[in-house]
């Protein structure tokens, strides 16, 4: 697998270089290049993570395919969330990129600082909450995908313990844990969720360790909100189940992989690039789910019983049609207090600020 990944990266690099050379050409290059819109992407992980950053890069490639005659794209991978992010973003802006996507929450303040210095460049920050004149935000309603997953987990667990690998205890991840747990308990009121935080988006070693620790505590289904398929491989070795995250991770554990929440940025990226080309781009917030085709589920594992698949599919289509919400009241927190009353759904603000667990999650949110 490693060799294949490397081969692919090298091939991809070569192909991209060939395109760049072909487009830039020699001599007459700069004039021709200037007419094309340069679009930059900043990734927190390697493109070869086969998860979150990989899906963003598929979105970038979709832009190239659809609008290749009008735009060129470049990306920087493995950018640490810290002082380096600002330099990378600024380098892209100074290098003539007019639209820059920064795809991780830790890039929020660096993006805003660079945006202030480059008012004619448009920025899009994924999963953050601060906007400005030329900074838009976008994210997927990842929590919607957790509802069908929770139902499946509730039906498939025998030990009634579900392991959950979290990256950082931010609202995006906590709301995912809660949506998952609510559905889990709907399908199986005895089941509970145990969470391990790895404090990283991409750290295959730590993710695998977390999966092992959870399995040793009795978990027989693993759900994750990190970027690598390491936990899927562990589940496969131990003969247990797991859900993929961000991308279809079936090939890393065909027996273990029940399904996955797949992020789909293709249409969003194409529409935003088009908006810049048409001059209709605005610094707005986009938060899309199943309905907006920003999320879908990977093919179900053939080992799943028909009725379980039907249950998950119904939840998914109901969410799409607005007949179901991942947080429909009554929702109780761990102390038993009703936070979302019966007959109501959680508001977007409640989800965006979520820093508490629902009943059924073991432990406390790190504070």
């Amino acid at each position: 697998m490693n060799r294949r990944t490397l081969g692919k990266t090298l091939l991809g690099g070569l192909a991209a270089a060939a395109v760049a050379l072909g487009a830039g050409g020699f001599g007459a290059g700069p004039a021709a290049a200037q007419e094309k819109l340069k679009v930059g992407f900043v990734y927190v992980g390697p493109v070869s993570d086969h998860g979150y950053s990989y899906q963003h890069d598929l979105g970038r490639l979709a832009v190239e395919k659809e609008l290749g005659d009008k735009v060129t794209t470049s990306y920087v991978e493995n950018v640490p969330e810290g002082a380096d992010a600002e330099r990378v973003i600024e380098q892209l802006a100074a290098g003539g990129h007019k639209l820059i996507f920064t795809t991780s929450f830790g890039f929020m303040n660096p993006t805003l600082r660079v945006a202030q210095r480059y008012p004619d460049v448009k920025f899009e920050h994924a999963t953050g909450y601060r906007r400005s004149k030329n900074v838009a935000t976008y994210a997927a309603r990842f929590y919607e995908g957790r509802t069908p997953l929770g139902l499946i987990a509730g039906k498939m667990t025998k030990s009634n313990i579900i392991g959950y690998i979290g990256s950082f205890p931010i609202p995006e991840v906590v709301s995912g844990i809660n949506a998952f747990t609510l559905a889990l308990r709907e399908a199986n009121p005895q089941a509970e969720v145990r969470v391990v935080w790895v404090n990283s988006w991409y750290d295959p070693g730590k993710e695998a360790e977390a999966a092992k620790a959870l399995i040793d505590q009795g978990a027989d289904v693993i759900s994750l909100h990190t970027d690598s398929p390491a936990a899927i491989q562990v589940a496969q070795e131990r003969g247990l189940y797991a859900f993929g995250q961000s991308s279809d991770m079936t090939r890393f554990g065909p027996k273990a992989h029940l399904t996955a929440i797949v992020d789909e940025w293709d249409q969003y990226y194409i529409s935003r690039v088009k908006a810049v080309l048409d001059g209709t781009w605005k610094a707005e917030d986009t938060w899309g789910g199943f309905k907006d085709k920003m999320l879908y589920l990977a093919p179900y594992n053939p080992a799943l019983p028909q009725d379980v698949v039907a249950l998950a599919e119904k939840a998914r289509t109901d969410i799409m049609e607005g007949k179901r919400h991942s947080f429909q009241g009554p929702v109780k927190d761990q102390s038993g207090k009703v936070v979302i009353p019966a007959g109501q759904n959680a508001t977007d603000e409640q989800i965006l600020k979520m820093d508490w667990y629902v009943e059924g999650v073991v432990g406390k949110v790190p504070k």
Partner: protein
Amino acid sequence: MSLFRLEPRGEASKTMLYATPLLAVALTLASGFLLFLALGFDPVRALHAFFVAPVSSLRGLGELALKATPLVLCAIGLSIGFRANVWNIGAEGQLTLGAIAGGGVALAFYGEGAGWWLLPLMMLAGIAGGMLWAAIPAFLRVRFNASEILTSLMLTYVALLLLNYMVNGPYRDPDGFAFPESRLFEEAATLPILIAGTRVHLGALFALLAVAGGWVLMARTFIGFQIKVIGLTPQAAGYAGFSQKRIIWLCMLLSGGLAGLAGVGEIAGPIGQITPSISPGYGFTAIIVAFLGRLHPLGILLAGLLMALSFIGGEAAQIELSLPKAITGVFQGMLLFFLLATDVLIRYRVRFGARRAAA
């Protein structure tokens, strides 16, 4: 019949000691040339994108200085310890503690209209934080003879977890949607920019002062002499009545303090807040920088700049030529490999041709 053979030198070559780092850089560039050629890139264009383009503007030079600042600060402190056989591997943790302590001061006075004294207080708190973290392995070494390599390294992970706890708890921005980040620091808690149009902050000046101070300490003071003697022959130092314990304390506190200063410089400089990831491993990279610079302050300054360039160049090559990120690691690896390989020239000289029959 071999084409060349190695012949031991009577004593280590001074010339080679300083020439081999340059030779290693030259070999790295040559190998890079071949590597790019083999990958199908125009090697001149690729090397230009990697090593020249990033520093051909004022902004680029500023970024270089900015990136080198924490590396040099940490490496100067570490190198002094390494000279005395005090192996502080935990600069990363000491840097983190410096950021936690210095940032805590900034947040404690948030919104209270603090004056000019806030920044010096933050710096002092940062240094004290780093020293405190380094004092633990120093105490364990002096009192129980516990290896500071292990204790300082393991404390790094404790420090990173402590940082995570702080940004998820006491330091968390109350208006930040529960994201694990502190508030953005106020103007009074941010280091002034030295060169307009860049991100070079006052910390760069501290790094230069550390280089000068490190040189004075090692070359011109009795303590520096003691450090060198203890490093070379601990027993002789013992006969001379030099206190090894005192030197261990001094080296650990000095390197911890400088790493702490580097940490508070990062959060009060380019980051401007406390986040869960302050350093992308500066404390560890500084170990490489220290050795690449031959544990000499001036060498460390150059090595720090070179290391910074390899990071920045890797990004530039990605943007310009879509080279994979791994190329940065490849270049750093080659540099170290050639440095270690050419070390053989310090103690041996190369003789071409076969040994004469008479000899």
